[in-house]
Protein backbone atom coordinates (compact mmCIF):
# COMPACT_ATOMS: atom_id res chain seq x y z
CA UNK A 1 0.00 0.00 0.00
CA UNK A 2 2.79 2.40 0.98
CA UNK A 3 4.56 1.45 -2.23
CA UNK A 4 1.47 2.05 -4.31
CA UNK A 5 0.95 5.48 -2.77
CA UNK A 6 4.60 6.40 -3.47
CA UNK A 7 4.47 5.12 -7.05
CA UNK A 8 1.32 7.20 -7.58
CA UNK A 9 2.82 10.35 -6.07
CA UNK A 10 6.01 9.89 -8.11
CA UNK A 11 4.10 9.51 -11.37
CA UNK A 12 1.93 12.53 -10.54
CA UNK A 13 4.97 14.73 -9.83
CA UNK A 14 6.74 13.57 -12.99
CA UNK A 15 3.72 14.38 -15.16
CA UNK A 16 3.46 17.84 -13.58
CA UNK A 17 7.16 18.46 -14.25
CA UNK A 18 6.91 17.38 -17.88
CA UNK A 19 6.17 20.75 -19.55
CA UNK A 20 4.49 19.26 -22.62
CA UNK A 21 2.07 17.00 -20.77
CA UNK A 22 1.31 19.53 -18.03
CA UNK A 23 0.52 22.20 -20.63
CA UNK A 24 -1.84 20.09 -22.71
CA UNK A 25 -3.73 18.59 -19.79
CA UNK A 26 -3.92 21.63 -17.47
CA UNK A 27 -3.37 24.87 -19.40
CA UNK A 28 -4.51 24.25 -22.98
CA UNK A 29 -8.21 23.42 -22.32
CA UNK A 30 -8.89 26.57 -20.22
CA UNK A 31 -6.99 28.53 -22.88
CA UNK A 32 -9.41 27.23 -25.54
CA UNK A 33 -12.35 28.35 -23.40
CA UNK A 34 -10.88 31.83 -23.15
CA UNK A 35 -10.14 32.02 -26.88
CA UNK A 36 -13.54 30.78 -28.06
CA UNK A 37 -15.38 32.57 -25.28
CA UNK A 38 -13.86 35.89 -26.32
CA UNK A 39 -14.88 35.25 -29.95
CA UNK A 40 -18.38 33.82 -29.53
CA UNK A 41 -19.35 34.65 -25.95
CA UNK A 42 -21.76 32.36 -24.14
CA UNK A 43 -25.12 33.96 -24.84
CA UNK A 44 -28.05 31.51 -24.53
CA UNK A 45 -29.28 30.24 -27.90
CA UNK A 46 -32.94 29.26 -28.19
CA UNK A 47 -32.11 26.54 -30.78
CA UNK A 48 -29.84 24.89 -28.17
CA UNK A 49 -32.37 24.85 -25.38
CA UNK A 50 -31.03 28.04 -23.84
CA UNK A 51 -27.38 26.89 -23.69
CA UNK A 52 -24.51 28.97 -25.13
CA UNK A 53 -21.50 28.04 -27.26
CA UNK A 54 -19.21 27.54 -24.24
CA UNK A 55 -21.83 25.43 -22.43
CA UNK A 56 -22.00 23.18 -25.49
CA UNK A 57 -18.24 22.86 -26.04
CA UNK A 58 -17.22 22.18 -22.42
CA UNK A 59 -18.26 18.46 -22.45
CA UNK A 60 -16.00 17.95 -25.48
CA UNK A 61 -13.14 19.72 -23.69
CA UNK A 62 -13.63 17.48 -20.66
CA UNK A 63 -13.20 14.48 -22.96
CA UNK A 64 -10.13 16.21 -24.42
CA UNK A 65 -8.48 16.52 -20.97
CA UNK A 66 -9.15 12.83 -20.31
CA UNK A 67 -7.85 11.76 -23.74
CA UNK A 68 -4.72 13.90 -23.37
CA UNK A 69 -3.86 12.40 -19.98
CA UNK A 70 -4.75 8.80 -20.87
CA UNK A 71 -4.29 8.30 -24.61
CA UNK A 72 -1.62 10.85 -25.45
CA UNK A 73 0.64 11.08 -22.39
CA UNK A 74 0.32 7.58 -20.93
CA UNK A 75 1.71 5.51 -23.84
CA UNK A 76 4.61 7.93 -24.29
CA UNK A 77 5.45 7.82 -20.58
CA UNK A 78 5.25 4.02 -20.29
CA UNK A 79 7.12 3.37 -23.55
CA UNK A 80 9.89 5.73 -22.41
CA UNK A 81 10.12 3.99 -19.03
CA UNK A 82 10.34 0.63 -20.77
CA UNK A 83 12.86 1.73 -23.38
CA UNK A 84 15.19 3.31 -20.83
CA UNK A 85 15.07 0.36 -18.46
CA UNK A 86 13.04 1.98 -15.67
CA UNK A 87 10.44 -0.77 -15.83
CA UNK A 88 13.16 -3.44 -15.47
CA UNK A 89 14.31 -1.62 -12.35
CA UNK A 90 10.77 -1.95 -10.98
CA UNK A 91 10.48 -5.55 -12.20
CA UNK A 92 13.39 -6.66 -10.00
CA UNK A 93 11.81 -4.85 -7.04
CA UNK A 94 8.63 -6.37 -5.63
CA UNK A 95 6.29 -4.43 -7.94
CA UNK A 96 3.49 -6.25 -9.77
CA UNK A 97 2.04 -5.18 -13.12
CA UNK A 98 -1.22 -4.59 -11.25
CA UNK A 99 0.50 -2.11 -8.91
CA UNK A 100 2.04 -0.34 -11.90
CA UNK A 101 -1.36 -0.08 -13.62
CA UNK A 102 -3.07 1.02 -10.41
CA UNK A 103 -0.52 3.78 -9.73
CA UNK A 104 -0.89 5.12 -13.26
CA UNK A 105 -4.67 5.01 -12.91
CA UNK A 106 -4.62 6.89 -9.61
CA UNK A 107 -2.05 9.51 -10.65
CA UNK A 108 -3.82 10.20 -13.94
CA UNK A 109 -7.24 10.32 -12.27
CA UNK A 110 -5.99 13.13 -10.03
CA UNK A 111 -4.37 14.85 -13.00
CA UNK A 112 -7.57 14.62 -15.07
CA UNK A 113 -9.67 15.88 -12.17
CA UNK A 114 -7.29 18.82 -11.79
CA UNK A 115 -7.43 19.61 -15.52
CA UNK A 116 -11.22 19.36 -15.62
CA UNK A 117 -11.56 21.56 -12.51
CA UNK A 118 -9.38 24.28 -14.06
CA UNK A 119 -11.43 24.05 -17.24
CA UNK A 120 -14.78 24.29 -15.44
CA UNK A 121 -13.54 27.09 -13.21
CA UNK A 122 -12.41 29.13 -16.20
CA UNK A 123 -15.73 28.57 -18.00
CA UNK A 124 -17.70 29.44 -14.87
CA UNK A 125 -15.74 32.55 -13.88
CA UNK A 126 -15.30 33.81 -17.44
CA UNK A 127 -18.60 32.96 -19.07
CA UNK A 128 -21.07 31.84 -16.41
CA UNK A 129 -21.13 28.18 -17.36
CA UNK A 130 -24.64 26.68 -17.46
CA UNK A 131 -25.28 23.10 -16.60
CA UNK A 132 -28.68 21.67 -17.51
CA UNK A 133 -28.10 18.02 -16.69
CA UNK A 134 -27.67 15.83 -13.64
CA UNK A 135 -24.39 15.87 -11.73
CA UNK A 136 -24.36 12.09 -10.93
CA UNK A 137 -24.89 11.37 -14.63
CA UNK A 138 -22.07 13.69 -15.66
CA UNK A 139 -19.73 12.22 -13.02
CA UNK A 140 -20.57 8.69 -14.12
CA UNK A 141 -19.95 9.56 -17.77
CA UNK A 142 -16.63 11.19 -16.86
CA UNK A 143 -15.44 8.23 -14.76
CA UNK A 144 -16.54 5.66 -17.35
CA UNK A 145 -14.84 7.70 -20.05
CA UNK A 146 -11.65 7.98 -18.00
CA UNK A 147 -11.48 4.23 -17.36
CA UNK A 148 -12.11 3.47 -21.04
CA UNK A 149 -9.43 5.92 -22.20
CA UNK A 150 -6.93 4.55 -19.66
CA UNK A 151 -7.53 1.01 -20.92
CA UNK A 152 -6.98 2.25 -24.47
CA UNK A 153 -3.79 4.06 -23.39
CA UNK A 154 -2.44 0.93 -21.67
CA UNK A 155 -3.16 -1.08 -24.83
CA UNK A 156 -1.26 1.42 -26.99
CA UNK A 157 1.62 1.41 -24.48
CA UNK A 158 1.79 -2.38 -24.66
CA UNK A 159 1.75 -2.42 -28.47
CA UNK A 160 4.33 0.24 -29.35
CA UNK A 161 7.91 -1.07 -29.62
CA UNK A 162 9.70 2.16 -28.64
CA UNK A 163 9.26 5.65 -27.19
CA UNK A 164 9.64 7.15 -30.65
CA UNK A 165 6.85 4.99 -32.08
CA UNK A 166 4.73 5.84 -29.04
CA UNK A 167 4.99 9.52 -29.95
CA UNK A 168 4.01 8.86 -33.57
CA UNK A 169 1.14 6.57 -32.58
CA UNK A 170 -0.09 9.07 -30.00
CA UNK A 171 -0.31 11.77 -32.68
CA UNK A 172 -1.90 9.46 -35.25
CA UNK A 173 -4.52 8.21 -32.78
CA UNK A 174 -5.14 11.42 -30.83
CA UNK A 175 -5.62 13.98 -33.61
CA UNK A 176 -8.43 12.23 -35.51
CA UNK A 177 -10.24 11.85 -32.19
CA UNK A 178 -9.62 15.50 -31.33
CA UNK A 179 -11.31 16.71 -34.53
CA UNK A 180 -13.77 13.93 -35.43
CA UNK A 181 -14.95 12.66 -32.03
CA UNK A 182 -16.35 16.04 -31.08
CA UNK A 183 -13.69 17.01 -28.55
CA UNK A 184 -12.36 20.17 -30.19
CA UNK A 185 -15.03 20.69 -32.87
CA UNK A 186 -18.78 20.23 -32.45
CA UNK A 187 -19.77 17.07 -34.37
CA UNK A 188 -22.67 18.97 -35.96
CA UNK A 189 -20.34 20.78 -38.37
CA UNK A 190 -18.85 17.51 -39.72
CA UNK A 191 -20.24 15.86 -42.88
CA UNK A 192 -22.55 12.92 -42.24
CA UNK A 193 -20.05 10.42 -43.78
CA UNK A 194 -17.29 11.49 -41.43
CA UNK A 195 -19.64 11.28 -38.43
CA UNK A 196 -20.63 7.75 -39.35
CA UNK A 197 -16.99 6.63 -39.36
CA UNK A 198 -16.07 8.72 -36.34
CA UNK A 199 -18.73 6.97 -34.29
CA UNK A 200 -16.32 4.03 -34.03
CA UNK A 201 -13.40 6.07 -32.65
CA UNK A 202 -12.85 5.23 -28.96
CA UNK A 203 -13.42 8.81 -27.76
CA UNK A 204 -16.69 9.42 -29.62
CA UNK A 205 -18.98 7.52 -27.22
CA UNK A 206 -17.42 9.41 -24.32
CA UNK A 207 -18.19 12.78 -25.87
CA UNK A 208 -21.72 11.55 -26.67
CA UNK A 209 -22.34 10.45 -23.08
CA UNK A 210 -20.88 13.63 -21.58
CA UNK A 211 -23.06 15.70 -23.89
CA UNK A 212 -26.09 13.65 -22.92
CA UNK A 213 -25.36 14.13 -19.23
CA UNK A 214 -24.89 17.86 -19.79
CA UNK A 215 -28.22 18.31 -21.56
CA UNK A 216 -30.18 15.88 -19.34
CA UNK A 217 -30.83 13.32 -22.07
CA UNK A 218 -31.49 9.85 -20.59
CA UNK A 219 -28.73 7.22 -20.91
CA UNK A 220 -31.20 4.85 -22.54
CA UNK A 221 -31.10 7.08 -25.65
CA UNK A 222 -27.42 6.22 -26.02
CA UNK A 223 -27.16 2.46 -25.71
CA UNK A 224 -25.11 2.36 -28.93
CA UNK A 225 -22.49 4.63 -27.40
CA UNK A 226 -22.45 2.53 -24.21
CA UNK A 227 -21.99 -0.67 -26.24
CA UNK A 228 -19.16 0.82 -28.28
CA UNK A 229 -17.48 2.07 -25.11
CA UNK A 230 -17.75 -1.37 -23.51
CA UNK A 231 -16.33 -3.03 -26.63
CA UNK A 232 -13.36 -0.63 -26.80
CA UNK A 233 -12.64 -1.07 -23.10
CA UNK A 234 -12.81 -4.86 -23.18
CA UNK A 235 -10.63 -5.09 -26.28
CA UNK A 236 -8.12 -2.60 -24.88
CA UNK A 237 -7.86 -4.33 -21.50
CA UNK A 238 -7.34 -7.72 -23.15
CA UNK A 239 -4.58 -6.27 -25.35
CA UNK A 240 -2.95 -4.43 -22.46
CA UNK A 241 -2.79 -7.55 -20.28
CA UNK A 242 -1.86 -9.98 -23.04
CA UNK A 243 0.93 -7.81 -24.47
CA UNK A 244 2.30 -6.27 -21.27
CA UNK A 245 6.07 -6.49 -20.89
CA UNK A 246 8.63 -5.02 -18.49
CA UNK A 247 11.44 -4.82 -21.06
Amino acid at each position, binding site marked *: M*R*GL*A*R*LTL*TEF*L*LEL*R*EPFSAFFSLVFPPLLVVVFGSIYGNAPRPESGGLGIIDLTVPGYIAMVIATVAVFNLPIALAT*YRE*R*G*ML*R*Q*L*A*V*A*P*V*SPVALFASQLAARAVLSALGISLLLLTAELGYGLRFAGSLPSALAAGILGFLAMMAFGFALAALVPSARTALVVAFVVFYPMLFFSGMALPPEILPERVRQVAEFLPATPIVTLLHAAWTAEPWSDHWRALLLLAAWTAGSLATAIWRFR*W*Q
Partner: protein
Amino acid sequence: MNVVEVAELRKTYGQVVAVAGVSFTVQDGEIFGIVGPNGAGKTTTIECLEGLRRPDAGTVRVLGHDPWRERRRLAPQIGVQLQESALPDRLRVGEAIALFASLYPKALDPRPLLEQLGLSQQLRTPVAKLSGGQKQRLFLLLALLHDPRLLFLDELSTGLDPHGRRAVWQLVRATRARGTTVLLSTHLMDEAEELCDRVAVFHQGRIVALDTPSRLIARVVGSLRVSVRIPEGAPLPPLQSLPGVRRVQREDATLVVHADDDRTVAAVVHSLVDHQVPLRELRVSSGRLEDAYLALTGTAVTREEQ
Protein backbone atom coordinates in the same frame (compact mmCIF):
# COMPACT_ATOMS: atom_id res chain seq x y z
CA MET B 1 24.67 -23.17 2.36
CA ASN B 2 24.47 -22.27 -1.31
CA VAL B 3 22.73 -19.01 -2.05
CA VAL B 4 22.93 -19.49 -5.80
CA GLU B 5 22.95 -22.79 -7.67
CA VAL B 6 23.34 -22.89 -11.41
CA ALA B 7 23.51 -26.15 -13.37
CA GLU B 8 24.01 -26.44 -17.13
CA LEU B 9 22.44 -23.06 -17.82
CA ARG B 10 21.91 -22.33 -21.52
CA LYS B 11 20.48 -19.26 -23.24
CA THR B 12 20.32 -18.54 -26.95
CA TYR B 13 19.16 -15.38 -28.77
CA GLY B 14 18.16 -16.51 -32.24
CA GLN B 15 21.35 -17.97 -33.72
CA VAL B 16 23.62 -16.52 -31.08
CA VAL B 17 24.50 -18.76 -28.16
CA ALA B 18 24.94 -16.37 -25.21
CA VAL B 19 25.39 -18.98 -22.48
CA ALA B 20 26.43 -22.47 -23.50
CA GLY B 21 26.10 -24.62 -20.40
CA VAL B 22 27.32 -22.91 -17.25
CA SER B 23 27.40 -24.44 -13.75
CA PHE B 24 28.50 -22.84 -10.49
CA THR B 25 27.40 -22.21 -6.93
CA VAL B 26 27.72 -19.14 -4.74
CA GLN B 27 28.04 -19.70 -1.00
CA ASP B 28 26.42 -17.71 1.77
CA GLY B 29 28.47 -14.62 2.67
CA GLU B 30 30.75 -14.86 -0.32
CA ILE B 31 31.77 -12.13 -2.78
CA PHE B 32 31.63 -13.96 -6.08
CA GLY B 33 32.95 -12.34 -9.24
CA ILE B 34 32.17 -12.98 -12.89
CA VAL B 35 34.78 -11.69 -15.33
CA GLY B 36 35.10 -12.14 -19.06
CA PRO B 37 35.27 -10.25 -22.35
CA ASN B 38 32.22 -8.54 -23.87
CA GLY B 39 29.75 -11.09 -25.16
CA ALA B 40 31.02 -13.83 -22.85
CA GLY B 41 27.55 -14.31 -21.35
CA LYS B 42 28.07 -12.51 -18.03
CA THR B 43 25.04 -10.24 -18.12
CA THR B 44 22.76 -12.92 -19.59
CA THR B 45 23.72 -15.25 -16.74
CA ILE B 46 23.12 -12.56 -14.11
CA GLU B 47 19.77 -11.62 -15.66
CA CYS B 48 18.69 -15.27 -15.57
CA LEU B 49 19.50 -15.25 -11.83
CA GLU B 50 17.52 -12.03 -11.30
CA GLY B 51 14.44 -13.45 -13.02
CA LEU B 52 14.61 -11.03 -15.95
CA ARG B 53 15.37 -13.75 -18.51
CA ARG B 54 14.07 -17.23 -18.89
CA PRO B 55 16.78 -19.90 -19.34
CA ASP B 56 16.45 -22.15 -22.41
CA ALA B 57 17.79 -25.12 -20.47
CA GLY B 58 19.40 -25.98 -17.14
CA THR B 59 18.35 -25.21 -13.61
CA VAL B 60 18.78 -21.99 -11.67
CA ARG B 61 18.05 -21.64 -7.95
CA VAL B 62 18.43 -18.37 -6.07
CA LEU B 63 17.77 -18.44 -2.31
CA GLY B 64 15.81 -21.62 -2.97
CA HIS B 65 13.58 -20.05 -5.64
CA ASP B 66 13.26 -20.46 -9.37
CA PRO B 67 13.88 -16.81 -10.33
CA TRP B 68 11.78 -16.85 -13.52
CA ARG B 69 8.71 -18.47 -11.98
CA GLU B 70 8.97 -16.93 -8.50
CA ARG B 71 10.40 -13.49 -9.21
CA ARG B 72 7.89 -11.73 -6.99
CA ARG B 73 8.77 -13.92 -4.01
CA LEU B 74 12.49 -13.56 -4.66
CA ALA B 75 12.43 -9.81 -5.31
CA PRO B 76 12.23 -8.57 -1.69
CA GLN B 77 15.33 -10.60 -0.77
CA ILE B 78 17.64 -9.49 -3.58
CA GLY B 79 19.21 -6.14 -4.43
CA VAL B 80 19.92 -5.47 -8.07
CA GLN B 81 22.13 -2.97 -9.83
CA LEU B 82 21.42 -3.48 -13.52
CA GLN B 83 24.02 -2.88 -16.18
CA GLU B 84 21.64 -0.73 -18.19
CA SER B 85 19.08 1.08 -16.17
CA ALA B 86 17.76 4.56 -15.75
CA LEU B 87 15.42 6.65 -13.68
CA PRO B 88 13.14 9.38 -15.00
CA ASP B 89 15.17 12.53 -15.75
CA ARG B 90 13.05 14.81 -13.58
CA LEU B 91 12.95 12.49 -10.56
CA ARG B 92 15.05 13.83 -7.69
CA VAL B 93 17.54 11.72 -5.77
CA GLY B 94 15.56 11.99 -2.52
CA GLU B 95 12.34 11.00 -4.32
CA ALA B 96 14.01 7.98 -5.93
CA ILE B 97 15.20 6.85 -2.50
CA ALA B 98 11.76 7.37 -0.93
CA LEU B 99 10.13 5.47 -3.81
CA PHE B 100 12.42 2.45 -3.64
CA ALA B 101 12.34 2.36 0.17
CA SER B 102 8.53 2.24 0.01
CA LEU B 103 8.51 -0.80 -2.28
CA TYR B 104 10.08 -3.12 0.32
CA PRO B 105 8.81 -4.32 3.69
CA LYS B 106 11.85 -2.79 5.45
CA ALA B 107 14.50 -0.26 4.51
CA LEU B 108 17.78 0.95 6.00
CA ASP B 109 18.36 4.55 7.06
CA PRO B 110 19.65 6.10 3.82
CA ARG B 111 21.72 8.82 5.50
CA PRO B 112 24.88 6.82 6.28
CA LEU B 113 24.74 5.30 2.80
CA LEU B 114 24.38 8.74 1.21
CA GLU B 115 27.32 9.90 3.29
CA GLN B 116 29.54 6.98 2.29
CA LEU B 117 28.67 7.34 -1.38
CA GLY B 118 29.12 11.12 -1.37
CA LEU B 119 25.53 11.87 -2.35
CA SER B 120 24.36 13.75 0.75
CA GLN B 121 24.34 17.10 -1.06
CA GLN B 122 22.39 15.73 -4.03
CA LEU B 123 19.03 14.92 -2.41
CA ARG B 124 17.18 17.59 -4.37
CA THR B 125 19.12 17.09 -7.60
CA PRO B 126 17.16 15.69 -10.57
CA VAL B 127 18.57 12.43 -11.89
CA ALA B 128 19.35 14.05 -15.26
CA LYS B 129 21.75 16.49 -13.57
CA LEU B 130 23.84 13.77 -11.88
CA SER B 131 27.23 12.81 -13.34
CA GLY B 132 27.73 9.27 -14.63
CA GLY B 133 29.55 8.30 -11.45
CA GLN B 134 26.88 9.82 -9.20
CA LYS B 135 24.18 7.92 -11.09
CA GLN B 136 26.11 4.69 -10.70
CA ARG B 137 26.49 5.32 -6.95
CA LEU B 138 22.77 6.12 -6.66
CA PHE B 139 21.89 2.80 -8.30
CA LEU B 140 24.18 1.02 -5.86
CA LEU B 141 22.45 2.80 -2.98
CA LEU B 142 19.00 1.82 -4.28
CA ALA B 143 20.15 -1.81 -4.57
CA LEU B 144 21.38 -1.77 -0.96
CA LEU B 145 18.54 0.19 0.59
CA HIS B 146 16.40 -2.75 1.74
CA ASP B 147 19.34 -4.69 3.19
CA PRO B 148 19.05 -7.62 0.74
CA ARG B 149 20.34 -11.10 1.47
CA LEU B 150 21.88 -11.28 -1.98
CA LEU B 151 23.24 -8.35 -3.96
CA PHE B 152 23.75 -8.39 -7.75
CA LEU B 153 26.14 -5.79 -9.16
CA ASP B 154 26.46 -5.89 -12.93
CA GLU B 155 29.47 -3.83 -14.06
CA LEU B 156 29.97 -2.37 -10.62
CA SER B 157 32.31 0.55 -11.29
CA THR B 158 31.33 1.71 -14.77
CA GLY B 159 31.81 5.46 -14.94
CA LEU B 160 33.44 5.79 -11.53
CA ASP B 161 36.62 7.76 -10.90
CA PRO B 162 39.32 6.25 -8.61
CA HIS B 163 37.81 7.87 -5.49
CA GLY B 164 34.34 6.63 -6.39
CA ARG B 165 35.68 3.14 -6.95
CA ARG B 166 37.37 3.09 -3.53
CA ALA B 167 34.16 4.25 -1.84
CA VAL B 168 32.12 1.62 -3.68
CA TRP B 169 34.59 -1.15 -2.84
CA GLN B 170 34.48 -0.20 0.81
CA LEU B 171 30.71 -0.25 0.80
CA VAL B 172 30.61 -3.66 -0.89
CA ARG B 173 32.96 -5.05 1.78
CA ALA B 174 30.90 -3.49 4.58
CA THR B 175 27.74 -4.97 3.05
CA ARG B 176 29.28 -8.41 3.00
CA ALA B 177 30.40 -7.95 6.60
CA ARG B 178 26.71 -7.45 7.49
CA GLY B 179 26.02 -10.89 6.04
CA THR B 180 24.95 -10.10 2.50
CA THR B 181 26.18 -12.35 -0.30
CA VAL B 182 27.46 -10.43 -3.32
CA LEU B 183 27.57 -11.54 -6.94
CA LEU B 184 29.28 -9.01 -9.19
CA SER B 185 30.55 -8.79 -12.73
CA THR B 186 33.41 -6.57 -13.77
CA HIS B 187 35.83 -5.73 -16.56
CA LEU B 188 38.49 -4.59 -14.13
CA MET B 189 40.82 -7.33 -12.95
CA ASP B 190 42.23 -5.29 -10.09
CA GLU B 191 38.65 -4.86 -8.87
CA ALA B 192 37.99 -8.61 -9.04
CA GLU B 193 41.30 -9.35 -7.30
CA GLU B 194 40.64 -6.76 -4.61
CA LEU B 195 37.08 -7.72 -3.79
CA CYS B 196 36.25 -11.27 -4.77
CA ASP B 197 36.63 -14.45 -2.72
CA ARG B 198 36.18 -16.46 -5.89
CA VAL B 199 36.19 -15.55 -9.54
CA ALA B 200 34.58 -17.31 -12.52
CA VAL B 201 36.20 -16.51 -15.85
CA PHE B 202 33.59 -16.55 -18.61
CA HIS B 203 34.56 -16.99 -22.23
CA GLN B 204 32.25 -17.59 -25.17
CA GLY B 205 29.35 -18.61 -22.97
CA ARG B 206 31.32 -21.03 -20.79
CA ILE B 207 33.28 -20.91 -17.55
CA VAL B 208 36.94 -21.52 -18.42
CA ALA B 209 38.19 -21.21 -14.82
CA LEU B 210 36.70 -20.80 -11.36
CA ASP B 211 38.80 -20.35 -8.23
CA THR B 212 40.10 -17.86 -5.68
CA PRO B 213 42.10 -15.11 -7.37
CA SER B 214 45.39 -16.27 -5.84
CA ARG B 215 44.93 -19.92 -6.78
CA LEU B 216 43.83 -18.91 -10.24
CA ILE B 217 46.96 -16.81 -10.67
CA ALA B 218 49.19 -19.55 -9.30
CA ARG B 219 47.62 -22.18 -11.51
CA VAL B 220 47.52 -20.24 -14.77
CA VAL B 221 50.53 -17.93 -14.74
CA GLY B 222 52.46 -18.78 -11.56
CA SER B 223 52.59 -16.72 -8.38
CA LEU B 224 55.48 -14.46 -9.37
CA ARG B 225 56.06 -12.05 -12.20
CA VAL B 226 59.52 -10.91 -13.27
CA SER B 227 59.88 -7.95 -15.57
CA VAL B 228 63.06 -6.45 -16.93
CA ARG B 229 63.86 -3.77 -19.48
CA ILE B 230 65.79 -5.16 -22.41
CA PRO B 231 67.52 -3.45 -25.32
CA GLU B 232 65.65 -3.73 -28.58
CA GLY B 233 66.67 -6.71 -30.67
CA ALA B 234 68.79 -8.19 -27.90
CA PRO B 235 69.04 -11.98 -28.15
CA LEU B 236 67.33 -13.79 -25.28
CA PRO B 237 68.37 -16.90 -23.43
CA PRO B 238 66.00 -19.88 -23.71
CA LEU B 239 64.10 -19.01 -20.54
CA GLN B 240 61.02 -20.99 -21.47
CA SER B 241 62.86 -24.27 -20.88
CA LEU B 242 63.80 -23.44 -17.25
CA PRO B 243 61.84 -25.47 -14.72
CA GLY B 244 59.07 -23.41 -13.09
CA VAL B 245 58.77 -20.88 -15.91
CA ARG B 246 55.18 -20.62 -17.12
CA ARG B 247 55.20 -18.01 -19.82
CA VAL B 248 57.65 -15.64 -21.44
CA GLN B 249 56.33 -12.52 -23.11
CA ARG B 250 58.01 -9.61 -24.79
CA GLU B 251 55.98 -6.41 -24.59
CA ASP B 252 57.84 -3.71 -26.54
CA ALA B 253 61.00 -3.09 -24.55
CA THR B 254 59.95 -5.15 -21.51
CA LEU B 255 60.45 -8.83 -20.97
CA VAL B 256 57.89 -10.47 -18.68
CA VAL B 257 58.46 -13.93 -17.21
CA HIS B 258 55.79 -15.68 -15.20
CA ALA B 259 57.34 -17.95 -12.61
CA ASP B 260 56.21 -20.41 -9.98
CA ASP B 261 58.49 -19.49 -7.06
CA ASP B 262 61.63 -17.70 -5.81
CA ARG B 263 63.88 -20.52 -7.01
CA THR B 264 62.60 -20.06 -10.53
CA VAL B 265 63.09 -16.29 -10.29
CA ALA B 266 66.71 -16.86 -9.23
CA ALA B 267 67.23 -19.20 -12.17
CA VAL B 268 65.78 -16.63 -14.57
CA VAL B 269 68.03 -13.87 -13.24
CA HIS B 270 71.05 -16.19 -13.47
CA SER B 271 70.27 -17.06 -17.03
CA LEU B 272 69.88 -13.39 -17.97
CA VAL B 273 73.23 -12.52 -16.37
CA ASP B 274 74.93 -15.49 -18.04
CA HIS B 275 73.72 -14.21 -21.39
CA GLN B 276 74.88 -10.68 -20.62
CA VAL B 277 71.39 -9.18 -20.59
CA PRO B 278 71.64 -6.00 -18.44
CA LEU B 279 69.30 -6.08 -15.42
CA ARG B 280 67.71 -2.65 -15.85
CA GLU B 281 64.46 -1.99 -13.99
CA LEU B 282 64.30 -5.57 -12.85
CA ARG B 283 61.14 -6.09 -10.83
CA VAL B 284 59.71 -9.08 -9.08
CA SER B 285 56.06 -8.79 -8.14
CA SER B 286 53.13 -11.03 -7.36
CA GLY B 287 51.35 -12.60 -10.29
CA ARG B 288 48.37 -10.58 -11.47
CA LEU B 289 44.84 -11.73 -12.14
CA GLU B 290 44.94 -9.71 -15.34
CA ASP B 291 47.73 -11.93 -16.72
CA ALA B 292 45.83 -15.09 -15.78
CA TYR B 293 42.70 -13.64 -17.36
CA LEU B 294 44.48 -12.73 -20.58
CA ALA B 295 46.08 -16.15 -20.72
CA LEU B 296 42.75 -17.89 -20.19
CA THR B 297 40.65 -15.85 -22.57
CA GLY B 298 43.43 -15.13 -25.07
CA THR B 299 44.51 -18.73 -25.77
CA ALA B 300 40.93 -19.69 -26.47
CA VAL B 301 40.73 -16.96 -29.10
CA THR B 302 43.92 -18.23 -30.77
CA ARG B 303 42.64 -21.76 -30.69
CA GLU B 304 39.48 -20.73 -32.45
CA GLU B 305 41.34 -18.78 -35.08
CA GLN B 306 43.43 -21.76 -36.09
